[in-house]
């Protein structure tokens, strides 16, 4: 219930008070380029590790399936 309240409050801030929602304690100026750079790098640095871990997981799963297929094929030939 509390989580829903926080989400509704955050969404209300974005919709009703966009300037307050964009307020950033570490942004040094409010220029558009600067804001865009902060948003882009935040998205990039948040998604990159998730993408790498997901990619590695998918690769390991594929390799594991390939090896299982190979070993079952060689057993059936024996």
């Amino acid at each position, binding site marked *: 219930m509390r989580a829903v309240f926080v989400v509704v409050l955050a969404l209300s801030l974005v919709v009703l008070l966009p300037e307050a929602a964009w307020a950033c304690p570490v942004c040094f100026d409010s220029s558009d380029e600067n804001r*865009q750079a902060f948003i882009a790098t935040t998205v990039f640095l948040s998604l990159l590790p998730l993408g790498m871990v997901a990619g*590695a997981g998918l690769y390991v799963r594929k390799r594991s399936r390939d090896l299982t297929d190979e070993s079952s094929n060689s057993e059936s030939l024996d």
Partner: protein
Amino acid sequence: MPAKRPAKREPVIPNGVLGMMIFIFTEIMFFSGLISAHTIVKSQAAGQMWPPYGQPRLPIEETALNSLALLVSGMVLVFTWFAFKRDPGQARIPLLLSIILGSIFVGFQGAEWAALLADGLTMQSSSYGGFFYLIVGSHAVHAVGALLALLWTYDRLNKDELRSSQLATVSAFWYFVVLVWPILYWQVYL
């Protein structure tokens, strides 16, 4: 009757390659952090002027040619892998060529640094200079480390002691050095 032992299964990824993959993941995050910091500082430049007024310009064309040497070195290393799979003896020349091309890249970068220092671009001259030496210098340290690893690989190949997992591990590191460079070039030089 003795219990039948299960057949030993090949590891999904060789241990060396797995270790190198984890190391490369951390390196990707390291360079991403540097690129992000560079992007933000660039966006805050006074009057959106980047490079800042009074700072020397980077040699874009010469470095593009030098980047080509690095990219070709990476491609030659792919051929080295296939040659090694066919016959390890055939991998000697492409591996040596890859090392030579990589050395040309590092050597040219060193000469470029000397020229830029003489022109007044230093770590202290501006955030532009600071980021240039930090990002390109970090890449150079990785390139030198990877070249030393390739030389070790070449030595083992000459002694007929090189295993395919060792070549794959060192190659993965060199591919990282090669593939991260165009991104750094685009961010820092262009």
